[in-house]
């Protein structure tokens, strides 16, 4: 399906995303004094570094037509493991960080294996992962654990100056992850296989691509990203708490969708998801600048945006299908009408 679509169609969602981001930023700048400062712009990255990392991992999962609901809980579990090992077990940060990263990676690997080997829907498997990770986080400790470690302090408070403004180390980590994500998606066999699976898993299998291995790797990568995001979140909050990042999986999925990735898989860009995260950030910033708007407007605004993008994508898909069908002079019922039976539930 992907191959026959023209380039215009492939690029349209991400162009809309970029345009929307610029428009919203201009709107904010015109409405509020001080919005158009480099620090406000960089704060978008500082406050959403963990979300950017999550979005990179999630983009790969969604590109294959899957979904990973466990990421928010993995953040909580990672922050809890890190805080517990640092504060209660008194381990060195150099030991704690690899262990924490292993937490999510292992869970992702298990998710991937169950999804691939037993052919169970990603939705329900990662849902179990969501329960499991948060439950384990609660088992470590119900209370929040504050972290007073010099290394974590350093990671949290170091400012890297850029001109008059600054960014945090977490932003650098996030940007490195984005670069790795872009490289993986567009310059490796792995990335091409991911897009192929999203286009049509069956075709990918018939082409002899390593579909099973790639699917497992994707969920492992998403788990790794979730753990890394968990560490960055821990730097940001300087505490471990089982309630951290409650419902964040929805924010991530929303950013990926707003970033122009099709939830049916096969179409989308890592960079688009980053802009999706920034759009969520701009909404929050606008609501903070507005002052009188309450926080729940963020949720409503995100819902409306996701809706707009999904409807927009549906129209694109239907249109391109109709065009194709007309071009081939062969109206295929299954493709020209919106499919009722959906691919991954």
């Amino acid at each position: 399906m992907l191959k026959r679509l023209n380039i215009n169609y492939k690029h349209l969602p991400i162009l809309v995303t970029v345009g929307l981001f610029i428009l919203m930023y201009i709107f904010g700048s015109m409405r509020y004094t001080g919005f158009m400062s480099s620090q406000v712009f960089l704060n978008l990255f500082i406050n959403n570094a963990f979300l950017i990392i999550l979005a990179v991992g999630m983009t790969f999962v969604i590109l294959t037509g899957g979904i990973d609901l466990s990421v928010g809980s993995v953040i909580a579990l990672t922050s809890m493991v890190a805080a517990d090992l640092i504060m209660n077990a008194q381990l060195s940060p150099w030991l704690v960080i690899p262990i924490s990263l292993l937490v999510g990676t292992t869970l992702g690997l298990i998710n991937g294996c169950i999804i691939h080997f037993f052919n169970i829907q990603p939705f329900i498997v990662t849902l179990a992962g969501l329960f499991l990770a948060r439950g384990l986080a609660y088992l470590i400790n119900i209370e929040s654990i504050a972290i007073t470690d010099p290394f974590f302090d350093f990671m949290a408070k170091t400012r890297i100056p850029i001109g008059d403004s600054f960014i945090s180390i977490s932003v650098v980590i996030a940007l490195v992850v984005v670069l790795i994500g872009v490289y993986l998606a567009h310059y490796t066999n792995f990335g091409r296989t991911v897009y192929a699976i999203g286009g049509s898993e069956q075709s990918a299998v018939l082409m002899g691509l390593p579909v099973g291995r790639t699917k497992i790797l994707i969920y492992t990568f998403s788990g790794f990203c979730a753990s890394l995001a968990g560490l960055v979140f821990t730097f940001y909050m300087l505490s471990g708490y089982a309630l951290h990042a409650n419902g964040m999986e929805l924010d991530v999925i929303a950013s990926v969708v707003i970033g122009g990735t099709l939830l049916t898989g096969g179409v989308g860009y890592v960079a688009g998801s980053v802009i999706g995260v920034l759009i969520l950030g701009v909404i929050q910033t606008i609501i903070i600048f507005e002052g009188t708007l309450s926080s729940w407007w963020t949720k409503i605004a995100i819902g409306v945006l996701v809706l707009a993008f999904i409807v927009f994508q549906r129209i694109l898909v239907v249109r391109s299908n109709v065009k194709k069908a007309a071009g081939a002079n062969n109206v295929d019922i299954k493709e020209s009408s919106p499919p009722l039976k959906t691919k991954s539930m």
Partner: protein
Amino acid sequence: MIKSRLFWPILVLVLILLLNLFFDPGFFSVEVRGGHLTGSLIDILNRGAPLILIAIGMTLVIATAGIDLSVGSVVAMAGAMAAFVVSKPGLSDDSLVPLFTALALAIGLSVVAGMWNGLLVSRIGVQPIVATLILMVAGRGIAQLITNGQILTIYYEPYSFVGGGYLLMLPFSIFIVAAVLALALFLTRKTSIGLFIESVGSNPEASRLTGLNSKNILLMVYIFSGFCAGIGGIILSSNVSAADGNNAGLWFELDAILAVVIGGTSLMGGKFHLMGTVIGALIIQSLTTTIYSIGIPPEVNLVVKAVVVLIVCLLQSPEFRKKVLGGLKSKANRDAKGVA
């Protein structure tokens, strides 16, 4: 009897309840106290009422190979809407007008929410998981908008009757559940609607070609799910006499899906078992009650649920049965369910 689909879920339920007897010999005793029946069993039924209702709606949605993630948010929205009406100061307990206004508005809102999901799925063709995700996120925002970010407390006596009152010595919520269950059973088993739902679930395109209006059946199923979630939300808010836009019905969508899956309805759609779902919901509720009464930290609940979801899904997966269970299928099945 062993062949019955309900056999394993009921066995698990009975085992969980017997486990309680081991820790609390008086677990099964039902006493008449203050004119109504009290006891742990009645308590499980009463507290499980919202979950059973929502799971009934979810069963029909899942039977069409869909899913409704928004039920938790709809619970919060319905509770908030009802509380918004009846939490106004100075309401007289004698007048029933606020009660019926609240019920009508709350149920109306949840039906609209269900219709919204249904239209997105059936008319625009959005994947159910995504379509309902929108309301799952935005719904909590709307609920908080209605309550203005506060937890509304209800002092209006008639409203508390819905979730906390008694009729014929039994909690009133049990009657509501029974009524909705009877309605669902009647519609799906005594009319052809049940068959249509199963048909759309197994192949919407083929159903359309045979002359079924697949789109309207999908729409109806989501509306029913919204309706059930709305009533669940009313019972919940009435039971605690408060509406919390942020936390009411949190994780309900997951519990409801879990109940449906435990009850033997496959997530692939096409088949459904309403009674199985009811048992599934009761299993979840007794599990929660048991964990509290035995004195295990309640946090373990999530881990237990995760393990249960995985086991049930693995047992439903043909690949798992082929690869792992093989000839020992029936035995392993028994063991795994026993653990659950």
